[in-house]
């Protein structure tokens, strides 16, 4: 290697290695959990039933949410037992999200059981203002959402667009809040009398208006929340509040990778199944090399996405310092894989892939919206540039 041209820059240290070896496999209890969730989703009728349900005009599939969240206890996986949850970890929640992604299920799991729950866990959990809503969400007795725009990436916390006065009355507007129309409880970051703070607001309280828009992803609807002197209960202030919201976004982004993995898996499996059966030119189209190679390349990407998603889930579960890197890698990698899998699914299905009646479009819409959710791949790569010392020019 020749010497660097010009004055040599000071040699900067290489990024820290991950502390302990991550466990990238699935444990037996995790596989049991997967089997239970998959069986529940299959009973609901799969993606075809999702499509029918979307025409009902409900904010989410309540008939699926209740047995999933309350019946099976998945809503409380991230919550310690003494706070009314299951005392499991991000690893188990990730398995649930894989299955929900595979079924493109319209339930507020990511928003309520992951984002809202983690935000509450980041507050002081010995205060009843925090423990009461936490216990309710963990038991699946209601849906909570963190009132930040869905595209917000961890580490890029925007200044709140809501102001709180000294009486705890909140005024302002937050856009793009996923599943807000399904929520009983809003966790609202606001600029309060003492700076950044997190408040709980009942969705049914006076002065609260939630207006869902027409979404790209029919299964996770963002809405505009307008607050006009709505009563809020203070959950946390300043640094605690910031850390709680940032931590929730980090966990959400890391676990979203598992949902993306599930989406990609369904798309690949269905495409392989369909192309092996569909005949053109006297052969199954899946026997043509041009198509086989595309599916094989996708398989490799899905297998790699699984390693990345598991690594993020494990890093979040162990709470190690490597979690921000693991999450950024998982999001930068898994988001485009899910989109490509869904796009290939539609293309390789031919005409049927373009129809409303075939569920492939649900996966494409979810995958594309997921690519924006909790930070685009570009934002996560920008975060990595800092974290692993690949500085921008």
């Amino acid at each position, binding site marked *: 290697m020749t010497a660097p041209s010009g004055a040599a820059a000071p040699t900067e240290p290489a*990024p820290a290695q991950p502390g302990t070896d991550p466990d990238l496999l699935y444990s037996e209890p995790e596989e049991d959990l997967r089997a239970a969730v998959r069986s529940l989703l299959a009973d609901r009728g799969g993606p075809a039933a999702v499509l029918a349900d979307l025409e009902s005009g409900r904010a989410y599939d309540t008939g699926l949410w209740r047995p999933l969240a309350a019946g099976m206890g998945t809503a409380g996986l991230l919550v310690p037992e003494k706070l009314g949850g299951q005392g499991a970890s991000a690893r188990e929640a990730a398995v649930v999200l894989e299955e929900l992604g595979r079924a493109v299920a319209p339930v507020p799991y990511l928003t309520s059981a992951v984002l809202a729950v983690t935000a509450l866990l980041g507050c002081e959990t010995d205060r009843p203002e925090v423990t009461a809503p936490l216990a309710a969400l963990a038991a699946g007795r209601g849906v909570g959402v963190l009132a930040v725009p869905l595209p917000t990436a961890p580490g890029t916390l925007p200044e709140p667009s809501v102001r709180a006065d000294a009486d705890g009355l909140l005024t302002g507007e937050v856009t793009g809040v996923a599943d807000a129309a399904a929520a009983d409880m809003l966790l609202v970051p606001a600029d309060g009398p003492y700076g950044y703070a997190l408040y709980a607001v009942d969705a049914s309280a006076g002065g609260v208006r939630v207006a869902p828009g027409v979404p790209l992803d029919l299964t996770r609807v963002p809405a505009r929340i307008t607050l006009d002197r709505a009563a809020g209960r203070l959950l946390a202030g300043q640094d605690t509040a910031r850390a709680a919201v940032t931590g929730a976004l980090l966990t959400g982004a890391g676990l979203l990778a598992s949902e993306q993995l599930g989406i990609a898996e369904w798309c690949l499996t269905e495409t392989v199944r369909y192309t092996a059966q569909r005949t053109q030119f006297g052969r199954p189209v899946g026997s043509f*090399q041009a198509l*086989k190679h595309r599916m094989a390349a996708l398989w490799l990407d899905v297998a*790699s996405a699984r*390693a*990345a998603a598991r690594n993020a889930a494990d890093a979040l579960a162990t709470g190690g310092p490597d979690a921000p890197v693991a999450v950024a*890698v998982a999001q930068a990698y898994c988001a485009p894989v899910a989109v490509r899998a869904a796009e290939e699914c539609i293309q390789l299905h031919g005409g049927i892939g373009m129809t409303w009646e075939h569920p492939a479009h649900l996966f494409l819409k979810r995958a594309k919206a997921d690519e924006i959710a909790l930070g685009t791949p570009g934002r996560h790569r920008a975060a*990595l540039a800092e974290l*692993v010392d690949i500085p*921008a020019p």
Partner: protein
Amino acid sequence: MTDRTRESGRLDAGELRRRTADLLVSCPPAETAPLDFLRARFDAGLAWVHFPQGLGGLDAPRALQVVVDAELEAAGAPDNDPRRIGIGLGMAAPTILRFGTDEQKRRFLRPLWTGEEVWCQLFSEPGAGSDLAALATRAVRDEDGTGWVVDGQKVWTSGAHQARWAILIARTDPELPKHRGITYFVCDMTDPGVEVRPLRQITGEAEFNEVFLTGVRIPDAHRLGAVGEGWKVAQTTLMNERVAIGGARQPREGGMIGVAARAWRERPGARTHDLHQRLLRHWVDAEVARLTGERLRQQLAKGHPGPEGSGMKLAFARLAQQISGWEVEFLGEDGLAYDDWTLRRPEGVDFTGRQAGYRYLRAKGNSIEGGTSEVLLNIVAERVLGLPPEPRTDKDAAWKDLPR
């Protein structure tokens, strides 16, 4: 793992540590010649612990090898040079273990492992690359029926100029369809009929060779597996080759991406936004490939080998080509220079050594050697995904009737 090994009556990590300590006491590395130490290590069953007793192993779980390796490395014990003997360790040894006679295992495995005898692989031919089963090298029974006479030409043979032995596949029955008329042999590279010629590559060096086989005599005792079963035996070799190529354990920023990242940190003046974006993508891809390999290793350790092994070589080849191409571009004026075009015959391939231009050119081979990426994608599509096979016209025809 510990509980499982106890149940099956196999050795556990503690017992292996004890045996490693015993070896270090009886042969202190500082006072023992490296070769003597390696022989003693083999005889103690600590060479490859999952091999049978008496053949360098202890019938222990494969995953426990790391326990032994870590102890020996910490003690400063000599290593058998895995780069120089890669083909022997990665391909010949697992094949001999699975298909060899007791006599063959005893004769070949010990000097193979210690590095005393280097191995090469006589598989590919000018007319049989991806379609390896089309090979034309002939092996015919000699006059007294105790052995074989081999004639033909092989190519892309790395290490042939250093090798004492070769694994060889040759056609023994041209009347049969191409996959069924092949037999697998161990070839003595010192036989007078073996001629090795360096094959110069785009890097300027001659890492590979052409090998001409003229009246090479191979005793029947050096046949591996049954006559006509050579294709089946070769599958074991090829499977292990692909695992060996894609399977090295890496730390974060190990391998080529580490070289690229260091170059980026050292040359702030060469940075552009476009190169930054691309480097970050490569960094993510390299980290995910590392994690995928790690996940595969964890599956293997639990005794559940996943199909990911088939794909790791694909990922490795693509990454190496993208990162080395990026680096030449990043170096700008320095990227216009090349370190050395001298015809050299390196002992092994070093994917982070030499200079960016060399790595860029050498990486072109990564998607060709050991199975092209196109062939591997077919294998993944058919064997992992279960997609219908390509229509074939050559499968049932006698080899001698195929167009060539």
